[in-house]
């Protein structure tokens, strides 16, 4: 019997640089050239000023816990309870993620706690960004 595996995302031509980044353990976000507006998710124009002149930058990987839920529902590949979170990157944008390296215990999960990015392999070629408390042990 095969074990159900976690959802594997698939890149589009426009988001491919992001997924190339995570595969290389880099979190790439975008910035517009004229005004340096930083944004996530990947797009071909700046959602703040509309310019199509946008470039990829590598985020520091530092973030803070913006909000979360502890899911008690069985999702493929996940063992409940597990933490679904929204983190705020040091550069400003927010993203959905999972927390690793910390128990799913409300007493431990303090909003705005410092986190750092890690990467979790999904299948052969894809990795997704997950976050762990700063100073906690990196995933093997």
């Amino acid at each position: 019997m095969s074990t159900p595996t976690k959802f594997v995302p698939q890149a589009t031509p426009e988001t491919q640089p992001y997924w190339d980044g995570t595969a290389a353990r880099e979190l790439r976000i975008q910035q517009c050239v004229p005004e340096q507006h930083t944004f996530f998710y990947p797009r071909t124009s700046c959602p703040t000023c509309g310019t199509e002149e946008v470039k990829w930058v590598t985020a520091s990987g530092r973030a803070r816990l913006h909000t979360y839920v502890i899911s008690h529902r069985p999702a493929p590949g996940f063992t409940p309870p597990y933490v679904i979170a929204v983190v705020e990157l040091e550069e400003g944008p927010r993203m959905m993620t999972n927390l690793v390296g910390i128990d799913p215990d409300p007493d431990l999960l303090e909003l705005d706690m410092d986190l750092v990015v890690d990467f979790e392999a999904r299948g052969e070629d894809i990795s997704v960004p997950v976050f762990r408390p700063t100073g906690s042990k990196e995933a093997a």
Partner: protein
Amino acid sequence: MSDVVIMGAAETDQLGKLPDISTLELHLQSARSALRDAGLGIEDIDGIASVSAPGPVTIAHALGITPSWVDTTSVGGASFLFHVRHAVAAIRAGQANAVLITHGESGRSRVGAPPWAMAKDSLSGQFEFPFGVLGPPTTFSLPVMRFLKETGTTIEQLAEVAVAQRRWSSQNPRAMFQEEVSVQDVLDSRPVASPLTLLMCCLVTDGGGALVVTSREFAESRGTDHPLVSVLGTGECATTPMISQMADMTRCEQFEVSSRHALQEARLTTDDIDHLMIYDAFAHVPLFGLEDMGFVGRGEAGAFVADGHTSPGGSLPMNTNGGGLSYTHTGMYGMFAIQEAVRQLRGEAAAQVPDVSTSLVLGNGGMFMSAATLVLGNAAAA
């Protein structure tokens, strides 16, 4: 501007678990009942609106209607409020005379229902689905912790939303859950996506509803057995397809924008509203709605509900059918919020509030993705 009215309104005969009725049939049964309610026939309808599946073309054809005005706005559970707004504009512009708006959803039994879209290369597929989210309970719930922290709302106050709505549903024989509950019952129910427990989450049911919208002039020329309900003002707004990208996770911009536009058009303020429906997929959504629409100040909604203001006998009766938490929730609940407002304004509700002349309906679509507001009134509002 000419007055546009809701002339016919009806829900499916039954709500809840209906494994013997398909999604399409839930639309059709609702449509025929709404036409009967309006005293109209299929030959009177020239406009049709519904969400994309099964879609207005399928519904119109099955009923025997050839529409010359079609709206397929499909932006989640608020879509039917968008349809009312668009129908009002079409009727005023002379593009349609009588518009039929239908909802039917086999949300629980999934009979003839569209499959869940889980495309791996969609935005959600790339940036949300990989993190173990399983539909609304694990995504719509995400803003709660931030909202509690920034507004000072307590988890007990959040539970009070579910408690208040059971007080209403206990008076409604059509409600799926009618037994009153305590704050402790709500907090002690099974954790779903902590801090949300089962009783803070909506039902999953089968059912449908439909509306007939037309000009007052036409409705009065035909006559009707039920009081006409005027559409006094409408508003709509959409923001993000992914809840993780909300600009501010403690405020819903589209609640503010759509309600402001609707109240401005109606030339009313929140003080003028007698009865309120706020789409309650989860217990926190009415708290956002009360604050973002300005019925209460920032951080005041939890105490407002806990103090009983939205309960039977309170100053602002809210979700008087029991809401998505206790009455019914097929998946796209907005139609049922409109139906209850119409019943209250007609004086036909199960838990009738005395002296209702105005009602505001706030519909949410997706996970804080879109919203529309309707301000409705009866003859006493004129």
